[in-house]
């Protein structure tokens, strides 16, 4: 009896162990997919497409911080060092906003590269879907390089998903980066639907808007005008009767592409990309006094609704004003705009003015007045080209404030030094590009000793 119980014990435990061993050591991964199965069959394509947009949308808020806090529209009002550095123009390469933008861009590029590498090899994907997603990947990658070139100058040109290659990759000239971005845009032409399911997704006219902006920045005025006109004439987008829709609503009628957030994936308290948190809850960044004065002017009109005031906030360094453009998830106002029709009119106005089509029918003046009328602001009359350039600069401030344009505009028009030196005694010309994040230099041998000048 006792011997048999010992044998029973031993056998039982042995059986238990051997059978349990495989289960114990090789549990099935839960709620994750491995690299090799994530994009293998047609059904995987929409999932990875969502992944592309999920990464891409973070570029939008990071660009807002870059475009407005580096310039003169926002000042710091909180405890985060990154915003103190931006607000007081003491930007360092350790700045978290700087690394947030950089990594948002390259993480998006990784997904785009993944799609561009793998999707052509997936059998059975309907042509329209394949073209669309390939087009989206090209468009998104092109946009990322465009922002990289204008935020950081020369940057690593990453075109594969190879970790080994991309860990040790030097900087490529800005011109080459921009050529690459244009090639991506060109590759996407005609691939995406003219009318995507929603403006949370890119379509043909989001791409043409990007091309219009690209050629504006590159001063290819005629091309900029052509693409802008294509978008306007598509009749897919219309200016909302009230400007305040742009401020308070997701997907206004003029939306061309926006980074979409819903209740479940709102960045909430994220200190780097949660714009409502940064602008409304914590008020880490608040409108600067010049921005308030400009937006409160007659010429700005209804666009004054981009900011709001509360006397409760008025104390110490705080002027009491807040950015109003980014609401909470439940207010249906947490999307961040990539392109909207208002900007397209401004692009065309500037392109026309630069081509000396300043006033008269189908001129810069008509485009500006479209926006003025909508904002219930006084229309402009005949002006010189020089005056028009100043009007456009101001109009871009009124219309696009806190949408991430100001810094890029001032730099590309050569106005940064003049405007910014008047705004802050700490301004230096090195701030026309951001530093390469210190972390990147530390971890990428090819970047060592290759920081932007002055940082």
């Amino acid at each position: 009896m006792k011997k048999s119980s010992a044998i029973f014990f031993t056998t039982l435990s042995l059986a238990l162990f051997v059978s349990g061993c495989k289960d114990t050591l090789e549990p099935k991964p839960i709620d994750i997919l491995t690299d090799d199965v994530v994009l293998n069959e047609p059904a995987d394509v929409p999932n990875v497409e969502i992944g592309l947009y999920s990464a891409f949308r973070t570029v939008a808020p990071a660009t807002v911080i870059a475009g407005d806090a580096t310039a003169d529209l926002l000042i710091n009002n909180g405890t985060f060092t990154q915003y103190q550095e931006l607000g007081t123009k003491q930007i360092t390469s350790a700045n978290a906003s700087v690394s947030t933008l950089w990594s948002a861009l390259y993480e998006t590029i990784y997904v785009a590269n993944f799609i561009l590498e793998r999707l052509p090899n997936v059998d059975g994907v309907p042509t329209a879907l394949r073209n669309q997603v390939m087009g989206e990947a090209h468009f998104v990658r092109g946009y990322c390089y465009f922002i990289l070139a204008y935020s950081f100058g020369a940057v690593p040109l990453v075109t594969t998903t190879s970790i080994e290659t991309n860990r040790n990759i030097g900087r490529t000239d800005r011109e080459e980066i921009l050529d690459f971005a244009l090639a991506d845009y060109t590759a996407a032409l005609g691939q995406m639907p003219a009318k995507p399911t929603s403006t949370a997704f890119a379509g043909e006219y989001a791409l043409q808007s990007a091309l219009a902006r690209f050629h504006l920045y590159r001063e290819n005025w005629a091309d900029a005008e052509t693409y802008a006109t294509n978008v306007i004439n598509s009749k897919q987008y219309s200016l909302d009767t009230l400007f305040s829709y742009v401020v308070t609503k997701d997907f206004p009628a003029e939306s061309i592409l926006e980074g979409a957030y819903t209740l479940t994936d709102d960045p909430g308290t994220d200190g780097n990309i949660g714009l409502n948190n940064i602008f409304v809850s914590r008020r880490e960044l608040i409108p600067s006094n010049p921005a308030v004065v400009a937006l409160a002017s007659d010429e700005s009109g209804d666009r004054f609704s981009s900011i709001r005031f509360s006397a409760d906030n008025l104390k110490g360094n705080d002027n009491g004003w807040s950015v109003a453009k980014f609401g909470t998830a439940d207010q249906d106002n947490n999307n961040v705009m990539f392109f909207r029709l208002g900007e397209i009119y401004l692009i065309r106005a500037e392109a026309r003015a630069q081509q000396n089509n300043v006033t008269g029918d189908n001129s810069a003046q008509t485009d500006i007045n479209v926006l003025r009328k909508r904002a219930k602001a006084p229309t402009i009359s005949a002006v010189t080209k020089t005056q028009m350039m100043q009007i456009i600069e101001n109009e871009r401030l009124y219309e696009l404030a806190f949408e991430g344009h100001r810094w890029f505009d001032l730099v590309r028009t050569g106005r940064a030094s003049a405007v910014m030196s008047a705004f802050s005694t700490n301004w230096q010309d090195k701030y026309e590009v951001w530093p390469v994040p210190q972390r990147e230099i530390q971890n990428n041998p090819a970047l060592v000793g290759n920081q932007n000048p002055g940082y």
Partner: protein
Amino acid sequence: MLRFLPGLLFILLSSFTFAQGVLVKGRVASATEPNGLPGVNVVVKGTSVGTITDINGEYSLEAPLGSVLAFSFVGYVTQEFTFNGQTAVNITLAEESTELTEVIVTGYSSVQKRDITGVVSSIKGDAVRDQSINGIDQALQGQAPGVQVVQSSGTPGGGVAVRIRGSTSINASNRPLYIIDGVPIQVGALSQRDFGGQDDNALALINPGDVESYQILSDASAKAMYGSRAANGVVIITTKRGKQKKAAITFDVQRGMVDIVKKLDLLNSTQLLELQREAVRNAGKNPDGLGLIPGVTDAVNTNWQDAVLRTGIMQQYQMSASGGDDVTTYYISGSYRDEEGVQLNNRFQRLAGVLNLDRKLSSKLSIGTNLNLSHTVNKRIKGDNFLDGVYSGAVKSLPYYTPYDENGRIVGPSSSLYPGFPNFNPVGQALLPRFDALTTKLLGNVNARYQISNELFLRAQAGIDYNEVLEDQYESTQTAIGGVLESVGGKGYGVYSTTNLGSFIVNATLNYNKAIGDKHHFSGLLGTEMIRQTSRTSSVQGRIFPSDDFTYIGSAGIVDQGSSFKAQNGLFSVFGEVKYDYLDRYLLTAGMRADGSSRFGPGNRFGYFPSVSAGWRISEEGFFKESSVSNVINDLKLRSSFGFTGNERIGNFQFLGTWAASTYNGSAGVSPQKVGNPDLKWEATREVNVGFDLAMLENRIQVTANAYYNKTTDMLYNRPYPTTTGFAGQTDNIAEMRNKGLELGITSVNIDKRLKWTTTVNLSKNMNKILFLADSIPVYTGYQANGVDGTNVLQVGQPIGTFTGLRFLGVDPGTGDAIYDDVNKDGKITNADAVVIGNAQPKLIGGITNKLSYGRFDLSVFFQFSLGNKILNFSKETFVNAGQDIQNNQSVAALRRWQKPGDITDVPRYELGNTFNNLHSSRFLEDGSYLRLKNVSIGYNLPSRVTDRLKMERVRIFAAATNLWTYTKYTGADPEVSTLDGSTTAQGIDFFTLPQVRTLSVGLNATLK
């Protein structure tokens, strides 16, 4: 056959003589049990005839004339008596005076202390009985060499960092492996929500009062049987079990007051206003324009520390019953602890019950169970790196505001008196939210032992450690999250989450013991084990509540975040050990464990962890015994060990490149999660130890000394990648590190008369150094700080816990600006000028315990110290911020600021918005050395005439105090501090961390008659 004949004859003879036995009676007593010691084994030597003493210590049996009676009992010296027909044989057993024969449980087997060849420190549960400790990890503090214990803060039930022989890892956990009655238990925080460095602690679920002993296994040999999980040391905890004696019912009661050890010296309203006005003027602005108006702004002067802190009440009660007979023993205990934190509304309550049962089913088969059930209710408080924390908020808040309005209502966002971001009302932050964490732990095992033969037995065990946490939270509309931060809450914010962490363990071991003649002793162990851990979590959040009368998510207007998840991992192992000794003189142990872990890829799944150790008891050698040294030295043993241990505590599926679910615009898809690393493998630590154990002067002085050199290779760490790869990093084996050190433990019985005085000293010195980092690039860790890459750095040649920053050279007497060392001489102060400015590793740590007893009085005094460690007083970057902002109160140190040319000071000029003067530098680094009277207790045993009248066996009353006195140069509130729960790479940082508490208590231990 012939050589067995004498034995057979002897057995026959004894059976024969037994028949002719004579009745013998008597009573067995001891010094502490003068009225009779129950459960003592009484046997007629050489026979199977025997009995045990009854509850009065009395026995009776029949024994032949001339036979030898042996009286034995655990913890007492066995006494023999030659029976010559006396009618009564009364015996007084002496307690074992030496610790050498003490049986030490070293995991799957046990060994006498004198035969140990590894490094094992032993702490008796009773040694820390009077200390009002909350969890079992605190019991290790200062009690054993090589063990560093830092309580993260004064929060009850909060995190405790325990390091045995330093940190062996930089990414994987550095917490020791805790085994309670054979079951590995969950360590660290159990709850889901981050409370800003104020974590909860799984070890606070075990009542220290139920612990019989702690064994700390420090070297490779002692830890060999734990292989892949042993690199950080192993703490074996044995709970109390019944003994073969009459039932003993004991009561323990303790009650006291809890206070913070020290408050910070901060500015009052008038001082702060003056400072802020100066800062604004220095920035070329008009202070009146910013609303900083004397007589108006400083009309209110609130001391926020006083407003949120209180004296808490600590109380604990325990009742236990234990006893047994020769077949069944039991221990049953129930306890309750209730500790109010020093922060308003912070409270920790624990109910714990233990049932330990052992039964012999036959002479060969015995079974047992340990069952430990506990439940805690933790009313938590946010802190540290949280703007809306309570203590952290209180020390930062401007004194210009008031916690209560004129009607006595808490000032909230709807009041015009509310300070708003970033100074929320810390009193409201304490009183209004509901942060209840309800944790239930079921820890238990069933085990069976079958004696196959005299030499061989099989032991099998199945156990479970199951933890369930419910987090029930609501932040009202009058709090920061619920009322101010619309991006999270807005109109009330509720969270409800559950966490289930279960680990299941089953093992079987064969133990073999064999003596060949008198000289050779062999023992062996062969075992196999399987451990599975499963965790399931869920969480749901709701926002926009109708009013603060509705606080559960069913009433929320928006329920927008919900999640659930499951994770699992497993370990499958085979292990074995062989021990041999020759005449107790030459000792040899060899062991090996093979572990397979689900956390590694197919090619690297199994790890092998061998070890060998040897001991030489010189005191058993003839030459030693003959020499005169043996008159002084009673026992001397040299030891040495060498072996490998490992660390597998990293996340699951790190070897796979994976994509996780994501959403966009209401659609679900997948996003890259991490990049795979099929080559990921075990972190291995190679450990060498040499040491000696010495007992001298009739065992009155015992010394244990060890020197060790441990090298960890293939260290697991998140290797940082440039994000051009699309990823921030990858878990990889990227570093090598060594720990070397010395440990010394001395116990000395200074006086052993009516006055008994014992001193225990233990000292440890550990030197840690990173030997190699892949890519040879420094890895920045810790907190983000002004103008540098991180507060801490991992760098070749430096220990972990190294602080980095600019080198602060002083304040320019001409301009009042900070001067930093321009290390690279490029004319600019940038993050490239950051250098190593110190480290958190102490040069020496230790504890000194003096125990005195005189008659009925006993006194215990325990000092603890740490020498040579640096603390990053990161709070100073806010408290002495040189005017970077004017939203935080300042320390009195700001009164020393530079004000006019010629001022010689160490505090720079205050200028609003100036970040340069507040860059992260050695200005914030301080010496963290301290000497602390950690615990003192005094007790008195009531005389028997009193106890008799009370029908008590024994009654002891005592008074105890913790953290009574501290000597330090550290200017923060408390040098014994570590935010982030002592996170490995960012230890020794004070970041608005709640200081330790001082507890004054009185108590009573009583045993029922």
